[in-house]
């Protein structure tokens, strides 16, 4: 008489292991993709705000740069989906006629940051550059 046997314990365990690896990999890839898509969206929004703010700081009179409030002066409505977020502006004088303006947006409890730095030079001419 033929003896009927099911799978051995080893076979079942190896099968389960393979299945677990496949499922875990698929789920983690899906989660990573979601995270990267969110970061990409946030970064694009952040750089729109940074670009707009740079246009303002590019045209502030060179002598007045240090006296400006250290936050964004432009409308930051575009950053609303990233709330709560914070903006800051730092002006470093590297030479008497040279200032570095660093614009920063922070979000996700300051774990994520986007920065844009512009250099201002005192050309002695109009304040437009």
């Amino acid at each position: 008489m033929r003896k009927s046997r099911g799978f051995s314990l080893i076979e079942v365990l190896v099968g389960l292991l393979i299945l677990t690896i496949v499922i875990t990999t698929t789920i983690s890839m899906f989660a990573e993709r979601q995270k990267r898509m969110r970061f990409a969206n946030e970064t694009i929004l952040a750089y729109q705000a940074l670009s707009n703010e740079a246009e303002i700081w590019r045209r502030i009179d060179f002598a007045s740069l240090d006296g400006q409030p250290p936050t964004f002066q432009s409308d930051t409505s575009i950053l609303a989906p990233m709330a709560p977020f914070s903006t800051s502006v730092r002006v470093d004088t590297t030479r008497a006629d040279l200032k570095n303006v660093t614009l920063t947006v922070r979000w996700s409890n300051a774990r994520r940051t986007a920065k844009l730095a512009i250099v201002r030079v005192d050309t002695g001419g109009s304040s437009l550059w």
Partner: protein
Amino acid sequence: MVKRERGYTMMEIVVTLAVFGIFLMIVVILTAEMRANEKRYPINYMAHPEVSAVMARMRKDVFDTKYYPATFQSYQQTPKTLILYTLRQTGFGETVVYDFRSSGEVHRKGFNASEQTTDWVAHGLPDFTIGSFTLGTGQDAVRIKALDDQNRLAIDEIFVPRPHD
């Protein structure tokens, strides 16, 4: 001999349901997170080549703009129409009209004096609106916005002309 038939034991069923339940929970959590992100963030139009092409052309045109005519031929400055008097690479002026009045597309029309010389069209665009933005220096800039299908602000950019001597 009577064959004895057995079903699954209670333990086997419980373990199977537990594994399936955990798997289902992970899928539901990930799906919910994906839905939450979709609701929270506007559509990323800037990844669309035609949208970024429009933004790039407009940025360049505004950068070289000398002034904004109030009217040109049958066009008027409105939130759907932008008229620029800009400089070409030849050094001569060109009147450029961005016409967003047709839904989902823009026409960039270039005019040499009163004669139309170019008509560039982009399709598949969001609903753009054009506004003005005055800098602290008194300089007039162009502010272009676009909302997505859920009325979320997806594009908000300021373009500033460079100073001309």
